[in-house]
């Protein structure tokens, strides 16, 4: 019976279906993207970490290789495998990162067994360990690159092109291993050292320790030099993973907003379909149908639509996912970690999750209407006006609960600690709370506006406002849905604009050199790869340069785990950062750094709860060294955070004079673009370096920024689309319901033109109200996104920058969407003859 009803109300069903489908689709596509990014991370690290439980990692650059032999010969390493690994690209495969994984095959078997022993026949193994430049790749990768055993492969390492050759193919043991291996070039540790320029160093030592490992760790620690640290694998991967997860959670939350908008729509349509059938239900109750059965009938309808809509949504979600997966992984690679695995299987859990949530949400949204249906007394149902009266009194109740929701939401934000879930929960409550206020606002607004519309549009104007007022129980929900969607659009736009503005300001302040030189890396923001020392020599000899600043970026171990460290010799660093808090003037900060102080970025300060005047402890080859914090500066390069110290201090403690970035300040009147071209032409190095003028570097950074927010922008549009469909369905239903009324109007001689104007006025008013309500809501949302969500997710402060255009645009969208939604009903109305329309019932 539920099924028949749905068939009977085709349009209605179709619209709910679409609403559910779009909501589910958005959610599924984001979840797919998140899950694939997570899976790609796992697969990329799985082969690399293998079965290791712990790792010995250096603070600064590399583990001196003799330490490994020393530990081995001391007999304290139970199961251990040395690793030299470098991200590389393969010529002709630009854009994809591969990992050159250098292992010691004699001890590695306990750690990594992702390839079949048969793929290592004697000759391949022999070549791998004895011949320079020999690598093994998976048979799949060989196929993709169309190369075979014995063939050479051109790879780019640290910006230098080098040649390796394939001495054998690895046959993965299963599908999973095949995926993990597709981004790997396996080499003997000697080859890996030689190719990556890490002769004399190891990147880490993998360990497999038993469950009860405290004694082992103590024993190893006793023999470790101070700048080597033993850490669990989870702890090592955890930080970076957590950062990315904050980003992913943001996306998930946004995608849920689309579903929330969809729920409004479902609720609206279902309520409407029940209201429409009150007479029928009354009659059915007279015929002996129980409350329970009516409840089940309406729920059954919702279930069917929910299932069909979710199924459609899953399909759509997969289609959308093709884009979102690319966008999300790009961003994650830009900002968080390099993945070498690209194609992962479709995570089925995401699809199931989307389906289940879609069906449950539909059922939930239909629950009030099902209860309403069950409450119908076994007599002819209430008249419309009675119902509306009931609705009117409910408006105050609704508004009251809205206020409570907003207050609870606000209180949630006040809970101390960086709980993102409370952040999102609070946001949801505030948004829903404001939406609950919408009907009351709408009524007041219409009452105020009615005289104005009468004056402007005459009797039609009065009718339009009156119609809306009379059917507020249904129109208000549509208006709320549109309001939420538009508010989300405004909120996100304001947030992105503010963020963009903040980043631009920050770049202006902190990028003061005219020309920058660095090695292209895989993370968009900073490269940890050293520049050929000859380059610095050559640049120093130029006569168009006023000053050269050098920077060493690396990762070191602090008391909080591994963190990013920059060592700079910019004498104006104190002036060229914007400080949130500091010990004093820019000069004083620089002076403090020269004397062994550190400045830390805001995200790090927030994450680790560090402040000016406190200290951070970093492991150096000569022991743990305490750095007093001279200031906390605004920084948007990495949400993981950064510590900056004076370069001479770094060189002194870490005995490392590598440089990863060079900033050149040109003499007055010299054109940076020309200098860039000249340097590129004259530089004598086999390293492929990025030489960029200030403007070009800024542009590159902003490109990454825009890439990061591309998906957010896409989500915003999708949410609006769901809302437009909501408005469309509500209006259509409204107009269909009013067919009889329309027929009478037609019989009374209303012209087609006038009917058009009536419908358009009605919908336009709805759009306008939604838009006007959305503007302040969007503003509040933007503030929440900036002050709560971003601060908690990424730890950075965004300066609010309000672009009035965002509001105008949003209101226009609301009105435009509403008008657009009126077109079909208006056309339908016009097509019907008066007689037909009246006969409808």
């Amino acid at each position, binding site marked *: 019976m539920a099924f028949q009803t749905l068939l009977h109300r085709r349009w209605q069903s179709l619209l709910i279906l679409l609403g559910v489908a779009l909501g589910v689709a958005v959610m599924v596509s984001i979840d797919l993207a998140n899950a694939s990014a997570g899976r790609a991370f796992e697969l990329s690290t799985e082969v690399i970490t293998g079965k290791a439980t712990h790792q010995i990692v250096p603070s600064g650059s590399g583990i001196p290789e003799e330490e490994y032999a020393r530990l081995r*010969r001391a007999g304290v390493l139970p199961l251990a495998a040395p690793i030299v690994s470098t991200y590389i690209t393969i010529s002709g495969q630009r854009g994809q990162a591969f990992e050159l994984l250098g292992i010691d095959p004699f001890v590695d078997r306990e750690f990594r*067994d992702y390839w*079949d*022993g048969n793929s290592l*026949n004697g*000759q391949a193994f*022999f070549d791998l360990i*004895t011949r320079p430049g020999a690598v093994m790749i998976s048979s799949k990768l060989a196929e993709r690159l169309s190369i075979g055993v014995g063939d050479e492969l051109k790879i780019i390492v640290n910006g230098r092109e080098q040649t390796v050759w394939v001495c054998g193919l690895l046959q993965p043991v299963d599908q999973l291993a095949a995926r993990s291996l597709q981004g790997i070039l396996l080499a003997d540790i000697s080859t890996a050292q030689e190719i990556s320029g890490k002769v004399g160093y190891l990147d880490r030592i993998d360990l497999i320790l038993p469950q009860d490992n405290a004694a082992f760790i103590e024993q190893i620690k006793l023999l470790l030099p101070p700048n080597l640290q033993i850490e669990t694998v989870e702890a090592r991967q955890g930080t970076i993973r957590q950062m990315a997860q904050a980003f992913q959670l943001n996306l998930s939350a946004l995608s849920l907003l689309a579903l929330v908008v969809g729920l409004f729509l479902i609720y609206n349509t279902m309520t409407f379909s029940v209201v429409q059938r009150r007479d029928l239900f009354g009659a059915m109750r007279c015929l002996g149908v129980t409350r329970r059965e009516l409840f089940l009938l309406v729920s059954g309808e919702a279930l069917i639509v929910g299932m069909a809509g979710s199924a459609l949504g899953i399909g759509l979600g997969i289609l959308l996912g093709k884009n979102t997966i690319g966008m999300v992984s790009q961003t994650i690679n830009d900002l968080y970690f390099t993945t070498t695995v690209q194609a992962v299987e479709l995570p089925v859990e995401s699809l199931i999750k989307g389906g289940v949530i879609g069906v449950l949400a539909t059922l939930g949204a239909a629950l009030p209407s099902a209860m309403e249906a069950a409450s119908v007394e076994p007599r002819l149902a209430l008249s419309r006006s009675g119902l509306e009266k009931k609705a009117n009194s409910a408006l105050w109740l609704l508004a009251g609960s809205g206020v409570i929701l907003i207050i609870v939401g606000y209180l949630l934000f006040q809970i101390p600690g960086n709980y993102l879930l409370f952040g999102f929960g609070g946001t949801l409550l505030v948004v829903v709370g404001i939406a609950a206020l919408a009907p009351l606002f709408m009524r007041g607004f219409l009452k105020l506006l009615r005289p104005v519309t009468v004056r402007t549009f005459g009797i039609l104007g009065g009718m339009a406002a009156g119609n809306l007022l009379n059917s507020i129980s249904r129109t208000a929900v549509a208006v709320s849905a549109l309001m939420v969607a538009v508010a989300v659009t405004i909120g996100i736009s304001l947030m992105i604009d503010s963020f963009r503005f903040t980043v631009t300001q920050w770049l202006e302040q902190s990028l003061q050199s005219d020309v920058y030189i660095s090695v292209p890396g895989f993370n968009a923001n900073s490269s940890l790869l050293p520049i050929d020392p000859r380059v610095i020599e050559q640049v120093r000899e130029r006569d168009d340069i006023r000053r050269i600043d050098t920077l060493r970026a690396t990762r070191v171990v602090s008391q909080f785990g591994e963190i990013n460290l920059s060592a700079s010799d910019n004498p104006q660093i104190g002036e060229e950062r914007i400080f949130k808090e500091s010990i004093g003037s820019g000069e004083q900060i620089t002076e403090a750094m020269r004397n062994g102080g550190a400045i830390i970025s805001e995200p790090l300060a927030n994450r680790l709860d560090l402040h000016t005047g406190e200290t951070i402890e970093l492991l150096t080859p000569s022991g743990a060294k305490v750095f007093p914090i001279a200031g906390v500066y605004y920084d948007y390069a990495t949400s993981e955070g950064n510590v900056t110290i004076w370069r001479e201090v770094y060189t002194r403690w870490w005995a490392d004079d590598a440089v990863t970035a060079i900033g050149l300040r040109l003499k007055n009147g010299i054109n940076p673009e020309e200098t860039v071209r000249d340097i590129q032409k004259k530089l004598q190095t086999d390293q492929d370096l990025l030489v960029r003028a200030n403007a070009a570097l800024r542009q590159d950074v902003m490109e990454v920024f825009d890439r990061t927010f591309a998906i957010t922008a896409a989500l915003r549009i999708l949410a609006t689309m769901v809302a437009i469909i909501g408005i469309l369905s509500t209006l259509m239903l409204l107009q269909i319901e009013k067919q009889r009324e329309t027929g009478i109007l037609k019989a009374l001689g209303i012209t087609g033109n006038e009917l058009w104007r009536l419908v358009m006025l009605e919908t336009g008013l709805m759009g306008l109200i939604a838009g006007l309500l959305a503007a302040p809501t969007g503003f509040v949302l933007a503030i929440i996104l900036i002050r709560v969500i971003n601060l908690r997710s990424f730890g950075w402060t965004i300066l609010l920058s309000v672009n009035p255009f965002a509001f105008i645009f949003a209101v226009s969208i609301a009105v435009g969407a509403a008008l657009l939604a009126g077109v079909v009903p208006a056309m339908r109305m016009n097509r019907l003859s008066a007689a037909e329309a009246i006969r409808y019932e």
Partner: protein
Amino acid sequence: MNRIGHFWKVFLIFLMILAGWGLAFAKRENVGDSQTGLDLTFDVEGNFARAEAPMEFQFPRDFGSHDDFQTEWWYYTGNLETERGRRFGYQLTIFRRALLPPEKRFERPSEWAVEQVYLAHFAITDVQNDRFYADEKLARGSAGLAGAVGQPYFQVWLEDWRVVQIDENRFQLSAKSDRADLDLFLTDLKGVVFQGEHGFSRKGEETGNASYYISQTRLLTEGKITIEGQSFDVKGLSWMDHEFSTSALGEDQVGWDWFSLQFDNNHEIMLFTLRKEDGTIDRFSTATLILPDGRTHHFANDEFTVTRIGEWKSPETGAVYPAGWRINIPAISLDLEVHPLIPNQELVLSYIYWEGAVSLRGQLGGEEVNGYGYVELTGYGQSMRGRF
């Protein structure tokens, strides 16, 4: 005199180890079906140095490795007892094999570059508890992980398994596995014994088919053995062999029985028989008597007999090994019975063989003698050629 069999053995062990390494890369369940089909024929052809004439040994330099020869090993075995007479046997062997002939080696920037591979076996026999502990290690002979040097003092090591010279005639030997630890001090009582013709030991008619072979046949030993966390102060005698060569042997040999026997009257015997496919003993089998002053007497294969007087079937591999021998060398009135201290001293590592502590009793030159020694039995656990 030489231990011909060892050339075969080391070569095969290396192939086995490498095969084992390859197999271990596979999932465990694949091991069974990959064993036969594995192609492990390396292109290690090349011009290695060969033993063609007696050489002038210089110590301590020549205690170290001779990398231009393809194969080399340092072989330590010993019989030890606690003050209360509880007996233990031990074996620590470090093998070296060159993967690249000298002309194919060149200077590479990385210290990890592989030219040599080292393999070590470590076993302890706990006679009282009838237990046998065996373990092995493999490492590249670079990056400080494994090696053997004679100067400034002798040391041979594979990670934390090592023998280090600590004084003129004193050495420290240590090795550690999951269940057993060994830490011993060895004092050489007789000096270096040169096997064969001043250390040049022929193995076949062909020129260069020979090895350089030296031994320390009587090393006074004391130190500590730890088994399953329990430590014992022990004393006793050890035996060391150091041999290097570049020779491949004939294909008709299936295995060998090798004996190092230390008598309580300050004499030692080294003896081996090489078993051929047809069950006969190869004519290169030989025996050597070492006198108290270090001088040696050699006996050709027709001057001695070895008769089996017992058998033991391994419950683990099903292999049947001889477990008791009667040895006769009429020229010196030697008549000995040799018995394993415990039957199960089978090493089931990447290569299966039996190497264990034995006791002996009998007559030498009309005098009653007792003593202990080590016996090595190969080719019983598996048909080697069948595996390749």
